[in-house]
């Protein structure tokens, strides 16, 4: 397989080629997923340099675990499992990690809707307001790490509930409840910013 010819090659073929000793095939997988992986990693660990290390370590781990990959499954779902675990480990070891109080009232369906006010709606609002970005960052950092992973995989990666459940090794119901909690917390942060 030539370097130029790898661009449109399906993941499964690249994995087979890698297992056959073609390192260039694995390079193509790295090039294909490094940007998305970095987006997820930076969302979980919160720091760009740590996220770079997490992505690197995850790809190295994936290279050596590739023989365990089950053909027919999605490579990125399989890879994201390694990535998210690596990112969560890094987050726990980092000084930024702190005890997070889990507000279970968000899991209750009886939680009352908030009072009416306007939310920032667009990415442009974010670009124009450093405070909004800071508020969002604090809200993301305050989420329990698995909740953070769920909302990033859903909202940034656009993964389906089932894919997230596979990637995080949990049930679809757990994904839904974590998503509900995380969305609620981020919405609250955006609302507080608007009020403040």
């Amino acid at each position: 397989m030539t370097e130029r010819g790898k661009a449109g090659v399906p993941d499964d073929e690249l994995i087979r080629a890698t297992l056959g000793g073609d390192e260039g095939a694995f390079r193509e997988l790295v090039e294909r997923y490094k940007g998305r992986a970095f987006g997820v990693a930076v969302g979980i660990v919160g720091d760009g340099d740590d996220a770079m290390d997490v992505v690197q370590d995850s790809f190295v781990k994936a290279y050596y675990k590739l023989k365990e990959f089950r053909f027919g499954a999605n490579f990125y779902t399989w890879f994201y499992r390694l990535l998210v675990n690596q990112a969560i480990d890094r987050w726990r070891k980092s000084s930024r990690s702190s005890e997070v109080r889990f507000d279970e009232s968000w899991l209750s369906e009886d939680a009352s809707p908030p009072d009416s006010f306007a939310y920032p709606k667009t990415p442009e609002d974010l670009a124009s307001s450093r405070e909004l970005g800071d508020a969002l960052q604090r809200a993301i950092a305050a989420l329990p790490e698995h909740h953070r992973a769920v909302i990033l995989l859903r909202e940034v990666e656009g993964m389906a509930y089932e894919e997230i459940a596979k990637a995080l090794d949990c049930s679809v119901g757990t994904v839904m409840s974590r998503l509900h909690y995380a969305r609620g917390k981020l919405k609250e942060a955006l609302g507080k910013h608007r009020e403040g």
Partner: protein
Amino acid sequence: MDCRTARKRIEEKVDGLLPREAEGELAAHLAACPACASESEGMSAVGPMLAAFVGARAAEKAPRLDAMWTRVRAGIEERREAERRPSWIPRWAWLPAALALAVLALLFYPTGTARSPFNPRSFEVSFEDVESDTATVALVDKGEDLPRVIWIIEDGKT
């Protein structure tokens, strides 16, 4: 539609899972209920804002991502080297060393106590690999009522 149902429907709508036939009913509720309308607005804002936030963070480091393959390749090589490099003490050498230590421990076991003498027929030594592939665990079980000794040998260090 009550507010509780509306909130469920709002999340379904945000996820693109709201059945088409429920759209009209939800829209009617939102038009009449400012609190649910605000909830809908807030929930809908989270995804695009989060994606924009993460995108902006990722863009800051994007040029450094160009070197990712170089970093990954270096990591692969480093691990390969580490696996190829022979340890200055072969792994199997820990077995007789652990046995010798166990025997020494038995020889110098305090005799002036009220404990019954140690019966060597009841002691076993077993080795188990742990997850890291670089550590060896030796369990020395001297039988009931006697302490169990656990040796953890990792990367040539005990």
